[in-house]
């Protein structure tokens, strides 16, 4: 599994430590489904799993949003237009876009968790007639930490998408809700009997979100999360990403809460 050299077409600085790369896809006809990730390689430095944040309907672009948290992601976010990074993938499972058709869809994210859900949102908006009420609940640390802020503004201006945003710490410019993202659930309009929820954020946030959605009447077979684990290979060989019986790289990252038995939520599993 060799990384394929892919040229950087543009780099957008989203936040202080978060950048979006627009890459030439590894090959003609390269495609992905919302929820998948690639292994991105910085020459000689190393490789990390990064979820795809672009539009699944546009096969000419491979868009990835990266937060610089270590040597490899530092190197990947320091690239310039015209540089080359290595790509393997796409890997992993998809958000249940088909299951959600004809139903209400709740998308709940925290922090950079919005990145792996953006393809799902773009897909939903592209095929808006297939879905009932669509609600995006997004929590960030502060107003300055809102990822894709411009796009969030656009989305919030649409009549066919409900966007609710909360921050942990407000500043004087903030006029919206303050608090954890679960506090927004009461404001969303969805039918808990049939709705589908897609959740991505820090594990603790997902744990409480699932609890709250279940309390609201949703069942675990319609709750989906995207899990994060250490990954070295992306193909279920290196063992690092194990979560109970799952290899998160190939059985996930998107997992149904029905499959994620209690064992998967046990501390330190």
């Amino acid at each position: 599994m060799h990384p394929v050299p892919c040229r950087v077409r543009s780099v957008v600085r989203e936040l202080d430590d978060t950048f979006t790369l627009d890459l030439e896809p590894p090959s003609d006809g390269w495609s992905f489904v919302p929820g998948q990730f690639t292994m991105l390689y910085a020459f000689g430095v190393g490789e990390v799993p990064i979820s795809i944040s672009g539009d699944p309907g546009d096969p000419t672009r491979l868009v990835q949003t990266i937060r610089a948290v270590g040597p490899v992601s530092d190197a990947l976010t320091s690239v310039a237009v015209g540089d080359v990074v290595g790509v393997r993938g796409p890997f992993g499972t998809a958000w249940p876009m088909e299951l959600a058709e004809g139903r209400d869809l709740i998308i709940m994210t925290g922090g950079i968790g919005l990145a792996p859900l953006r393809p799902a949102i773009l897909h939903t908006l592209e095929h808006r007639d297939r879905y009932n009420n669509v609600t995006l609940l997004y929590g960030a640390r502060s107003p300055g930490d809102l990822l894709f802020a411009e796009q969030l503004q656009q989305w919030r201006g649409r009549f066919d998408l409900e966007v609710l945003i909360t921050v942990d710490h407000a500043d004087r410019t903030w006029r919206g809700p303050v608090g954890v993202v679960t506090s927004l659930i009461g404001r969303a309009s969805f039918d808990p009997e049939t709705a589908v929820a897609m959740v991505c954020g820090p594990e603790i946030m997902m744990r409480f979100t699932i609890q709250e959605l279940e309390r609201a009447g949703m069942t675990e077979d319609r709750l989906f999360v995207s899990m994060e684990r250490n990954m070295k290979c992306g193909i279920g060989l290196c063992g690092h990403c194990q979560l109970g019986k799952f290899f998160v790289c190939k059985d996930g990252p998107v997992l149904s809460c029905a499959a994620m038995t209690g064992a998967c939520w046990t501390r330190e599993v």
Partner: protein
Amino acid sequence: MSEPLVIDRQGVDALIAVLIDRGYEVVGPTVRGQTILYDTITSTEDLPVGIRDRQEAGSYRLEERGDDALFGYVVGPQSFKKYLTPPGTVFWKGLRTEDGFETVEADPPPRHAFFGARPCEVAAMRVQDDVYLPVGDGVYTERRERSFTVAVNCTEPAATCFCASLGTGPAVSDGYDIALTEVLSGEHHFFLAEAGTDIGEDVLADLSARPAHDEEVVGARRLVVHASDHMGRSLETDGLQELLSANLANSIWNEIGNRCLTCTNCTMVCPTCFCSTVEDRQALDGSSAERVRTWDSCFTLDFSYIHGGPVRSSPGARYRQWITHKLSTWQDQFGSFGCVGCGRCITWCPVGIDITQEAAAVRERDIRKVAVGIPSVKEVLE
């Protein structure tokens, strides 16, 4: 396959010579630093002749047997995974080019003949086959397909052996090219040689071996059956998968964690443990880079590290991950146990943590069972 043949020590030498002649690098047990390790061998002189290994939890000693047995010991710390997924294998090399970089394939591997593979070793290779072959891992697949296996049935298990519990020994049942059984009683010293594949039969045809008499076959089989009845340890496998998956919240893990040094020995000596990591190396001038695969262990903190900290920070959680993978989730993933009962992890644990004992302890303190006996708060209040 044809009927069993009989060869003597010279015949075993001839077998090694034939394999070398056919282009194999013959690797098998040999004494290095008071330990039986696998290395290149060229004749029976290189084998641990007349040596026995005494193994117990946290203890390993070699001693003289006082006879000429070629296979009078069981398994040392190494397994053939050292040849099938060698630590430090270069996956690919990358060269910086004018407009980016390009990658080039690594060199082809040698052809190995695994000589003196115990039934648990052969079983372990089959377990690893299920991990690597479906994914098409190039490093493993190429080495495995080019390899030749001379198995040796066990007649004298160690105190740490429990292959009989897992059905992986002491007789080799599948996955070998040639199987030998050593018979040493009084003046009789011979080896029953049986082919398991066409190529094995072809190799045996190059030896001057005679067909075995019925009593020789029966005698050899009896020794193996005797070994089966004299395992040093046992593992109750009934309901084991569910037992462990239901006991993740058991307090026993912290207690084991208090003893466990997280030294990774058990995973390094385990013949089925496959976890690995990659290292990306770069030349000082940045002109080239390479990706190297090395063995990794779920006992290190780094193993589960994600931004924010390791997932499994406590030693107890890491031991739980290891034993639960071996005996429970491996079945979900690959349809078999990740344990072949070789006992290496018991012998080479510096504090003598014993997988069979710990599995039994969990069974003893099964939280499903305990929960039945203790009334809930609600029941007490009512």
